[in-house]
């Protein structure tokens, strides 16, 4: 029983981290119908940025998110403006796969040149601290990451639901032509929306760098997990991706701890296949294409 509860705690906290990473991915799909294969690379870039700034300034990595978020916002907005916007609308969804994959490879190459392929991690000194609560271990960093995930998701929700920019995004998602007729600059909204999705990688990268060693090639594993999370949750549904991330985190931890680690990823993919067979749009995929 102790093992089950410990696995539940570990899985929930890990799920929170994946929810944070996947929220940007699903936001980008919701806004632009772009399956962003570079999201994992942006997370790794966020981790490197945080690491460099931490080594340089010694400011706490969680505080550095305030600095790295705008940087990644502009990186994302520039990617959309210069590389995705010029694509012909008719081919945009398919071609954006190639473009974002090229961006991922480019970022990987750039990071390899700058940082080499040595494994790095962010070490503020408390990265391995755990609280013992009733005999269970709760890792501090993962707990903070979990809280951060919730905070980021609430902020995203508020931006989308309560601000003029959010309304413009939702209008563009639901009907780009009508939105444009009503005065929404859909090009700018798309660039800002993509930037917002990529900006979440700043927080996700900081957390990722704190809990696991990384190098430029880490984005391959990340993107495969993020894609499965957003597909399971339903492409475009932020709430769905949160729940899917929790399912993945808790499921993987339980199978790893109680059965065998070799089955943990397989179990998750088996769940994914079953959900897609029964409900092809994912657990919470919107019936109306593009609704957030």
């Amino acid at each position, binding site marked *: 029983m102790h093992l089950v509860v410990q696995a539940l705690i570990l899985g929930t906290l890990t799920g929170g981290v994946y929810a944070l990473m996947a929220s940007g991915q699903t936001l980008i799909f919701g806004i632009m119908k772009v399956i962003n294969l570079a999201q994992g690379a942006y997370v790794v870039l966020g981790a490197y940025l945080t690491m460099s700034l931490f080594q340089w300034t010694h400011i706490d990595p969680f505080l550095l998110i305030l600095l790295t978020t705008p940087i990644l916002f502009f990186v994302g907005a520039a990617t959309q403006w210069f590389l995705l916007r010029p694509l012909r609308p008719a081919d945009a969804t398919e071609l954006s796969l190639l473009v974002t994959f090229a961006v991922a490879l480019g970022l990987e190459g750039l990071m390899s040149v700058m940082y080499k392929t040595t494994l790095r991690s962010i070490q503020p000194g408390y990265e391995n601290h755990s609280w013992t609560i009733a005999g269970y271990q709760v890792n501090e960093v993962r707990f903070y990451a979990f809280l951060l995930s919730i905070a980021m998701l609430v902020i995203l929700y508020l931006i989308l639901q309560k601000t003029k920019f959010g309304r413009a995004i939702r209008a563009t998602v639901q009907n780009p032509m009508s939105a444009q007729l009503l005065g929404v600059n859909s090009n700018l909204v798309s660039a800002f929306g993509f930037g917002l999705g990529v900006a979440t990688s700043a927080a996700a990268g900081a957390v990722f760098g704190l809990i696991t060693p990384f190098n430029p090639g880490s984005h391959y594993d990340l993107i495969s997990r993020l894609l499965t999370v957003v597909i399971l949750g339903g492409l475009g549904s932020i709430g769905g991706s949160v729940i899917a991330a929790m399912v993945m985190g808790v499921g993987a*931890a339980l199978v790893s701890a*109680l059965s065998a680690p070799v089955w943990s990823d397989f179990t998750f993919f088996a769940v994914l296949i079953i959900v897609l067979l029964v409900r092809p749009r994912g657990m919470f995929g919107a019936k109306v294409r593009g609704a957030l």
Partner: protein
Amino acid sequence: MKLSNTKVSKRGMITAGVLSAALITSSLLSTVGVAANAASPLKIGVSLSLTGDFSDSGLAAQRGYLLWQQEVNKKGGILGRSVSIKIVNDASSPDQVVTNYTNLITKDKVDIVMGPFSSLLTIPASRVAKRYGYSFIEPAGGGPKVFAEKNPNLFFVQPAATTKGGDVFADYILSLPASQRPKTAGYVKLDDPFAAPLADNIKARFEAAGIKTVYDQTYPSETADMTPVVSALAAKNPDVVVGGTQSADAFAQVKAMIQLKFSPKWLFLSNGASSPLEFPQQIGANNTEGVFTSSDWYPKSTAPGTAAFIKAYVAKYGGAATSIDSTSTEAYSAGTLLEEVAAKTGKIDNKTIIATLHKGSWPTLEGNLSWNAYGEPQGSYLLTQWIGGALTTVWPKATAQHAPVAPKPAWKN
């Protein structure tokens, strides 16, 4: 076109004359070249992973090869011929490594080739060398599949096949009096042709000696989060934990143990903990104490030439002896073997190298090496332990700098 009807012009005659003169001159020059061969540089070709997944180790091997080139040339080269190493980049790709060695042999016409980094690249590279009858002294491909190739031209420049890296830990544990030995053991292994068999070898010996296995699991290479695995391991509370690890997973295992406050009495990691720089950086310098691993070289080694090697290395690349990656030492040792063959036989060609190295024992920085028919070294590794913040040899007793520290001190944070 009928040749008999073709007019031979004056211009054609001149062209033919010039061509003939050129041919005669070139043949004369090549004759001179043969005569001057004794003083021509000894060309050695190597493919290394200067980019890609293995680039850290590839660059370490490059430092070793280039340092040896510098040192051997200071001494006047080999048999009066200066050594010129051509290093090409394979970007950690098993396909590119084949192209590289084929080009080195057929286009660059190097005299000798030496090995790349990793078993993955050594296997296809050694096939190319065998096809062209080249010897293949290689510093960093020691997995079982390398020797399964049954390539008589291959010589692995480390003390033993890499899967035997755990034998010294088993030797040490089983040397303890029965009352002091661990009673239970846990095995956490990466699904990898090097890491898992190494841990399985230890497990077989422990079980035969009555040490009960309470946990034995293999994890796939994409496992980034080791905490669920380690939580299950910790629930069994084994006395000794054997991690069949590479690098990232080794760091993740230790971090998970620290986070879950599980500190076994003995902890052996096959790889990852042997990295003098990365291991303390990744898990925190104050958490390394007491962790066992195995090594082929250490800075305080008494092998002849060690002090000179360290001095030259630090002078060329900076840093300290403790920061020298053992891959640099292995590549350097591959070079010194050529010197020894030349010194013993007075010749340096592939047939001589292959025939000579198959006989006797050869002193290197890695210790005295000898090989079976297919290049598998017949020695054993050294058991090292992190003591006082440095990797320290603790077994076998003859080479130990310090007695093994057990039980392992608790994690510091």
